[in-house]
């Protein structure tokens, strides 16, 4: 059995700011569980093709997110009818969701600041 970790759980704020790719992956997993290619497509679609993750950067980020406990791999396939049995699916953990939310709030505050200083119009 691995030794019990006695350190307190990390606060979501301690992960901020998130790297760009990481945040996009977390956002893409916010509404549903996805496999790697689905994440990649979602990111590409949401950014209108501006951000295209390569397999290498995608899986390096996934490995880091798994290690930090922000996402987890699913044991069962959510949609076995339409999918290849070999694919792995990922889901946000509670911590992951909290971190993604905290990052979104941070960006929101930043946006509000930009509006307050006149950098952006008051109402989008």
């Amino acid at each position, binding site marked *: 059995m691995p030794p019990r970790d006695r350190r307190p759980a990390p606060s979501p704020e301690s992960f901020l700011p998130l790297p760009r790719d990481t945040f996009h992956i977390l956002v893409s997993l916010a509404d549903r569980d996805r496999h*790697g290619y689905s994440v990649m497509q979602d990111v590409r679609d949401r950014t209108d093709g501006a951000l295209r993750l390569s397999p290498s950067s995608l899986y390096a980020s996934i490995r880091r997110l798994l290690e930090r406990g922000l996402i987890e791999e699913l044991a069962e396939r959510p949609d076995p009818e339409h999918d290849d049995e*070999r694919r792995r699916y990922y889901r946000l953990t509670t911590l992951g969701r909290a971190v993604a939310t905290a990052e979104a709030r941070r960006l929101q505050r930043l946006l509000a600041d930009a509006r307050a200083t006149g950098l952006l119009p008051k109402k989008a």
Partner: protein
Amino acid sequence: MTRHRPPPGSRAFRALLALYPAAFRDEYRREMTLVFADRYRDADGAAERARLWFEAVTGLLMEAPKEHGRMIARDLRYAWHSLRRQPMLTATIVIVLGFGLGANTAIFSLLNAMTARTLGSIPHPDELVAVNTREYALGGPEGSRLSGPMFEHLRDAAPAGVRVAAMSRGIAHVYTRTADERETTPASLQLVSSDFFSLVGAAPALGRSLPDDRHNQAPDAVAVISYGYWQRRFGGAADVVGRVMTINNVAFTIVGVGPRAFTGVWLEAPVDVWVPLAMQSAVKYSQNFSADGADLGRPWLTQPNVWWLHVVARVPSSRSAVVAGVFNATRSSTAGADAGLVLQPFSHGFSQFRQRFMLPLQALFVMTALVLLIACANVANLLLSRAIARQREIGVRLALGAGRSDLLRLLLAESALLIAFATIAALALAHWTSGALARAAAATADAAPLAAPIDWRVLGFAALSACLSMLLCGVFPAWRATRVNVLAALRSGGRGATIRSSRIARALVVAQIALSLVLVTGTGLFVRSFHNLQYADLGIDASHLLSVRIDPRLSGEEPSRLPAMYARVIDAVSAAPGVRAASFAMCGLDSSCATQGSYAVEGRPPRKGESVDFRVNVVSPAYFSTVGMPIVAGRALDAHDTATAPRVAVVNKTLAETYFPNGAAIGRRVGLDALDTEIIGVVEDARALNNIAGLPAPAIFMALAQQPIVPRSLTVRTVGDPGLSAETVRMAIGAAAPLLPIESMTTVDEQLARGLSRDRLATLLTTGLGVLALGLAGFGLFGVISYAVSRRTSEFGVRMALGASPASILRQVMREALALIVVGAVVGAPLVWIAGRAASTLFFGVSPHDWITMMAALFVLSLAGIACSLRPAWRAASIDPVIALRQE
């Protein structure tokens, strides 16, 4: 469920994933390949596919190194935690390896400093070559010697673009005085040709260089002084050019000041004053020469048979073969085709250090390499026993699914970390010891200490040695540790030492003992050689002797009145209180006399091509009794051998035995041009104090009164401590010849100690290395025997329960230790023989295959081995059978 055929290209992508660390690859390869295949399938057109490939490859090249770095950092972190759990073992390994690597790096940094030093202040030093004859090529550029006419020929024959310059072989100590000074001041002087400064690219900082000396123009009494001398002696005075300064009583005009930082081409002997070659006889330069039938009283520059010059050329590298050919053609036309010329690289300048220490340092380097090997064997053994002790842990990890490659990497990370620590310790040790060694070596050579910095070459060497050590002592134990039978490891509860592992451990100890035998024997040989040097029969009675260096030519006396002055000095010194006798000689006891060649020997016509070389000394009557050189036949030189009496000489035993084998030397004649000198006595062979190890050469002693030679040495035999009589002797000389300058005054014991200082240093260092090797081998034996005893605790317990006595257990363990020592000795003996053959020139008076030394080494090694095995053996004998069996 849908099945996709892998699209073209995904196999290539899959292959590219080999760039990732195995752990990452195993985890994500399939997923990544699937994603790539999906994107490939969805891509529209060739441009999109090309873009996909581009993104995939760049992403891979960016991410794979990061993953490797992450894995390495993780392994090192684990390794650090694992090492911290066993601080004693970690410290031991770091210390053992640190010593091995440190000793090696220290000697390497000295070798590096010696070979890497170039004539830094000279532009394009690689274009410089020294012209040497084949005869002296082995001695390096320092050994070269050419005559004045030879230099002129080479200079005239040099193709366009090639410059040739000459300089005196020696740097002379001279006395200088400016117009407003009364006392003289010593300075170092070198005679150089006019091209010297332009050849070495040393444009004068002030004034001009020496005037052109081609085609025997009338020489000017002019001098160029060094920048440092200008600052020291003249306080950097701007009007120094044009001032007159006497050098050995001859007035010279200073025409220029050399550039800053330029002190000549001898690395450790800076020059203060340079004067033209043609001023040789004016400044009374008479050192570092060879001559054959020359009139040494006449200027040397025009004489073809006085070899007193180094010749250096600046040759563009592409033309060196052409130039060598041209020079050789010149040589054959002027001096016969007897000896060819070779061009030797001169970018490193001349170095006393290199001459003196290259060979001993190379020997020491080999010894430190052996020490490193022993240290590696030792550490390999420690790591191996550690790996065996961790068999259960490794078995558990494997059973839980860890890959062998992961474990191997982890264990290698541990060794890498250990070696990194050891390398840091080694560099610190090397930095400290090489500095101390350089100072000690400089002290033996009367030279400025050599800076031995830790530069990139030393760091590179340390890194290379560390990698080799890693290969030798880290990789094998790690590989061995992961070859574990998981079931057996788990079942044996971590005590499953295999017979093979203990065999390997024993083999490593045998290797250590064998290598230690080589080192300890080497140390023994060095110690015996040094002892022999210290107590060598010098052929003189060295105690109570004071050696005074003088230069009568600077005494202001007319040459015709010098003999009278000699007599006055001898009488005054001999009459001084505490002095027993005094005598003049051309050559002191601490120098090898100039050799003059091709003597004719009565009754022995020279063989074809033979050159009969004698060491020549010219001495005053009481010389042999003063220095304590026993006469073995005939008589000594005496007061009757005057200028008008028939010319006589005394020869040494080697000359008498070589040229008159029937013992008939007395009464025979020798001579340079004619058989004009009669041998009247034979003396015991004497060794030169600066080269005690040198073989005695045929030597001839002429009478001072009968030779036009100026003596440079006064030897004084005192009643008591010669050091205490120095002042009395100085006053006596001052009373008899007030203007005779005394260059130095040392006791012969001091000269002897200085002559041996290099060997003393080498002996001290080899002894240190021998002790280190002995300690390491003993430690290795201790470790292996301790380990074997701890493994067999229960076996010993059972035996004792069955009635075996503690003494019999003790005997059994000691028998095993002795067996290892014996096997080590058997393996080591041929190595000792091979090493002895390679190092035979380093020892004096002892054969490199001296069996007494080897036996003594074996004895010391066995004693150390037995001492180190006693404790574990005693522990085995004091096992309590009840406790041992309960443990089982």
